[in-house]
């Protein structure tokens, strides 16, 4: 909301702050000052005064000839809005083209509604923008949603008054009424949504452009002058916070105003020219046949005040905040009025606001007002008293503030305060503060005005709490540290994904949670796995020619829970992707990443969180995995066969769609499941083995279909059977080619024997090796190298 210093001063006698002091004061009371505007920002272009030379009446409009520094311009203006020759009007130039309205004026059919006349004392043909604003400034405020009362100049005046200990007040009203009897009927058929409705009839008025002072006020407050009646209602809304509406009384059929709920399907064209289709829960103002306004939101075009209007029905009422809010949301129509009704208006100032409009209009020109009030319902009772303990206030605010000071602050804010016994006070909440209902609300008011700077800081004293680092958090941290130290970059990606990518990946639809009201199709699903998000990151980096890196993310994925009590499942996954070369392949040979680099990384992780390779088993997927190439995809399982993760080389076809030409290796692990396997472990250090080791190499020729895992399993079986002292078994040569039949490959592995108790003798080792060989020979498709070539 905008406030102008000059307008604020009318409600606050003795205000003598600079604009920046005022801004600072408001900020410290919880009113966010978004900007302090000087003149240049309000009137973006210099404003000149120009002289009206001649008025030529044409059919339907008036042509005014305006001179500015020897040049004459012609402007088409509505008949009612054309000034007389000799008047001075505003002119600005945008790209050399003259404009006769300082704001974005609505020019229907190239026709201006009116030209604003400047006061006599402005010399024609000069830049008058500085003179217009004078010493004034405008503050743009952001009002929190609880403070409907501060959506008004008077509300801001009270805030300033409370801090500076100044007097604030409403200006007195003065206008003339006549006794002529008028017949008008008012029916409130929805007292629940409109507890109080008042109407006043202006029996004769001429619709004119507003005088310069009123137009200027509106400019400063960010509103556009329209005509004297509408401008007066708008200005009073800004002053008091009470929205008003003026109807052309002659267009209200049968002189009947009805406040009622809309009939389903009823239509109303609002003054913004949009046809609104109404529903039963919406409150309207109607005449005896159809709606003429959306209550508290916007008037109808059918009763809009126009230059032909002579009689005006002026509405000032209280509308239910929830009803206004719902209707405004349903129609997508937010207005200055609806914003105020939603937050609550002052029921005690409903009639005052009408009277204020009439006072302003009577200063603008001749009019007659009927004495009668048309009233339905009564102002809602808001009286409440709250007993507040001053000691409690001091405790909450942790500052020493005297009871007298508290009472003074509350008094200036408009609260009634009566001191009571035992350091207490009884506080009467004023009608405009619907947000205050509890003692803590009163304490906040005291704290706000007294200033949060006065609160003395301390650190809460607490019984000792040993804290709670959860094992899972610790393991997650371990994994993150490990990967970063290994050279991987942590990423954070959006959990919302594009269904198109999902479709391309072939992820089943029922796995995915859809957002009911997405911002765009691109982000309309919750991911059920991380791969989709990784692809986007990979694509972006490839486009920027960053081709050698590893990335990872630990983040939640989502899926609908199968018939569970809770409808959703959230699970933490770890995604890892790597591509390019581990070393930059520049002057030395790089090391291209491959599936075994990825696998090694996973094995190391499993190792450092204290799991055995037998607890997290790499295996072939039962079926093709979407997005992965057929060879080299793998599944991770626990010994019971539960899925712990998956990975492999990403499918070329998929990558090409994303314009990625590099090989990408990707794995995704269900870390929570893996951490669960890890459990609590006690580290027990073993004796350091200082006995010498003996190594033996064994070479095998095996069928291509035989895996190392099968051989390894047989070896460890024989290790167990004969209680061999084996420290390690590792493959060190893998070979296939010309010297071998095409269906065979050669595997050489090294067994390291070391006993923790003694130096092993050659005899023992030879015996074990022969046992191993015996066992291996029993395997189908496995041959000892020395025997294969001799047979």
């Amino acid at each position: 909301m905008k406030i102008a210093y000059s307008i604020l001063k009318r409600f606050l006698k003795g205000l003598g702050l600079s604009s920046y002091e005022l801004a600072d004061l408001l900020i410290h009371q919880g009113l966010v000052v978004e900007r302090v505007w000087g003149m240049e920002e309000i009137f973006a272009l210099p404003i000149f005064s120009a002289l009206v030379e001649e008025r030529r009446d044409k059919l339907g409009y008036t042509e005014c000839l305006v001179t500015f520094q020897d040049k004459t311009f012609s402007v088409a203006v509505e008949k009612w809005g054309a000034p007389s020759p000799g008047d001075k009007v505003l002119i600005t130039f945008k790209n050399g083209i003259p404009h006769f309205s300082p704001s974005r004026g609505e020019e229907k059919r190239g026709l201006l509604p009116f030209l604003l006349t400047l006061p006599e004392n402005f010399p024609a043909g000069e830049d008058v923008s500085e003179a217009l604003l004078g010493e004034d400034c405008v503050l743009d405020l952001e009002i929190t949603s609880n403070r409907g009362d501060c959506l008004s100049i008077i509300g801001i005046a009270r805030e300033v008054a409370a801090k500076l200990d100044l007097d604030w007040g409403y200006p007195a009203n003065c206008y003339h009424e006549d006794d002529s009897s008028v017949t008008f009927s008012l029916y409130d058929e929805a007292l629940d949504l409109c507890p109080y409705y008042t109407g006043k009839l202006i029996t004769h008025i001429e619709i004119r452009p507003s005088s310069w002072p009123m137009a200027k006020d509106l400019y400063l407050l960010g509103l556009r002058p329209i005509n004297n009646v509408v401008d007066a209602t708008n200005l009073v809304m800004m002053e008091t916070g009470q929205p008003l509406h003026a109807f052309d009384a002659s267009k209200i059929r049968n002189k009947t105003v009805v406040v009622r709920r809309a009939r389903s399907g009823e239509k109303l064209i609002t003054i913004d020219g949009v046809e609104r289709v109404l529903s039963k829960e919406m409150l309207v103002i109607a005449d005896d046949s159809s709606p003429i306004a959306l209550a508290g939101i916007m008037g109808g075009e059918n009763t809009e005040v126009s230059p032909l209007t002579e009689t005006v029905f002026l509405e000032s009422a209280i509308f239910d905040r929830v009803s206004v809010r719902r209707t405004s949301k349903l129609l997508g129509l937010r207005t200055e009025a609806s914003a105020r009704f939603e937050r609550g208006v002052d029921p005690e100032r409903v009639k005052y606001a009408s009277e204020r409009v009439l006072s302003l209009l009577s200063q603008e020109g001749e009019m007659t007002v009927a004495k009668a009030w048309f009233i339905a319902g009564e102002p809602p009772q808001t009286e409440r008293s709250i007993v507040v303990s001053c000691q409690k206030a001091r405790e909450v605010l942790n500052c020493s503030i005297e009871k007298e000071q508290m009472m003074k602050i509350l008094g200036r804010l408009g609260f009634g305060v009566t001191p009571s016994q035992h350091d207490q006070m009884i506080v009467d909440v004023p009608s405009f503060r619907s947000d205050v209902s509890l003692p803590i609300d009163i304490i906040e008011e005291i704290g706000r005005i007294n200033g949060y700077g006065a609160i003395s800081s301390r650190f809460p004293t607490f019984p000792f709490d040993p804290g709670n680092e959860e094992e899972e958090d610790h393991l997650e941290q371990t994994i993150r540290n490990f990967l970063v130290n290994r050279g991987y970059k942590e990423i954070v990606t959006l959990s919302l994904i594009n269904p198109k990518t999902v479709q391309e990946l072939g992820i089943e639809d029922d796995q995915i949670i859809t957002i009911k009201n997405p911002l765009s199709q691109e982000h309309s699903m919750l991911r059920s796995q991380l791969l989709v998000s990784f692809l986007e990151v990979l694509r972006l980096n490839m486009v920027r020619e960053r081709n050698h890196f590893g990335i990872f993310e630990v983040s939640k994925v989502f899926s609908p829970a199968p018939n569970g009590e809770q409808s959703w499942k959230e699970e933490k996954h770890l995604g890892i992707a790597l591509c390019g070369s581990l070393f930059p392949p520049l002057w030395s040979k790089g090391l291209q990443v491959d599936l075994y680099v990825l696998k090694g990384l996973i094995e190391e992780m499993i190792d450092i969180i204290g799991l055995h390779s037998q607890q997290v088993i790499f295996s072939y997927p039962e079926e093709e995995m979407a997005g992965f190439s057929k060879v080299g995809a793998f599944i991770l399982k626990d010994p019971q066969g539960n899925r712990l993760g998956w990975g492999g080389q990403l499918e070329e076809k998929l990558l090409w769609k994303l314009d990625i030409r590099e090989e990408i290796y990707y794995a995704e692990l269900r870390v929570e499941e893996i951490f669960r396997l890890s459990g609590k472990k006690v580290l027990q250090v073993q004796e350091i083995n200082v006995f010498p080791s003996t190594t033996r190499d064994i070479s095998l020729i095996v069928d291509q279909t035989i895996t190392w895992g099968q051989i390894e399993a047989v070896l460890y079986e024989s290790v167990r059977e004969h209680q061999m002292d084996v420290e390690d078994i590792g493959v060190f040569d893998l070979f296939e080619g010309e010297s071998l039949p095409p269906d065979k490959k050669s595997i050489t592995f090294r067994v390291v024997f070391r006993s923790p108790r003694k130096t092993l003798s050659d005899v023992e080792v030879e015996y074990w090796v022969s046992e191993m060989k015996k066992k291996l020979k029993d395997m189908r498709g496995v041959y000892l190298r020395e025997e294969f070539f001799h047979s």
Partner: protein
Amino acid sequence: MERVGAIVTFPDFERLEGYFSSFKEDLVAVKTIDELNRIKGKYLGRNSLLGELLSKLRELPQEEKKKWGQKMNMLKTEMEDMLKEKYHVLHFEKEKRKPLDITLPGKKQWTGTFHPVLIVRDQILAIFRSFGFRVESGPEIESDFYNFEALNISSDHPARDDQDSFYLNEKWLLRTHTSPAQIRTMQKLTPPFKAVVPGRCYRRDAFDATHSPMFHQIEGLVVAPGISMGDLKGTIEAFVHRFFGKERRTRFRPSYFPFTEPSAEVDVSCGVCWGEGCRACGHTGWLEIMGAGLVHPQVFLNVGYDPEVVQGFAFGMGIERIAMLKFGVTDIRWFLENDVAFLEQFKTLR
């Protein structure tokens, strides 16, 4: 070379005298490491005189064996030392001719980095842990009750406009703040307690330089008898000093949140202009870092706490915003884009 009979004679051993002097002569003439290896073989190899005599040593009578054994070992050691020395000399000369280019780049592996948003999250959590706070968590898919109702934000509350939400259906939505974790934490723990809850949040905001439909927050909650605004202020000031530095000032100003009363916005003095006003702080000298306040009595009632018995304070901060302030990031989208060149800049923070 003489290799007669099985009987070792003393004159064989006497020949060692001349052996050493001819070794020295040969050594002086050596020019390359290859030559050196040949000399080594000639004088110390298995087939050299010394090797031969060493293998014959055990055939000597006891006393002679001892005498010649010692003598030959000394000789062998001395010859080995001389060879080693010569080797170093030759090797150094070779190095001088073909030096290693130490200015070539080393074989650097990838540089790992934590994500800046999570760096900031972890730094903040570490500070609060050191203040004795527990770290709790909550789901990202929340019910309307936890996200709004229990926090005093009814469906017709204008405050809902500030938090446009992504809905999954009528009842469930993506949490718009970490504040629902306040409710969950109060249901889980028994006062007194101090807890922080980090997590992702979602709002129906279109992407621009300062908005993202997804962002991270850290919620803080302290519940104990007698908690006041003073405790809130002291705790946050201590946090600001630890996180931003001792020289930064903290400002509390009134604000409004439906679930706290009194409510406050916390500003920290601008680290670029030191309060003078600059572009970074919108010419105010202050940077807004969090919302805070005392827990509203209604919120306590909603979880079955008695607001007459316990009081509490709560705060919530946006991590991206703080990361932007801390690192001078001007566009929030960089955090979600994950350009590895952007991420690499955070390599010194681990």
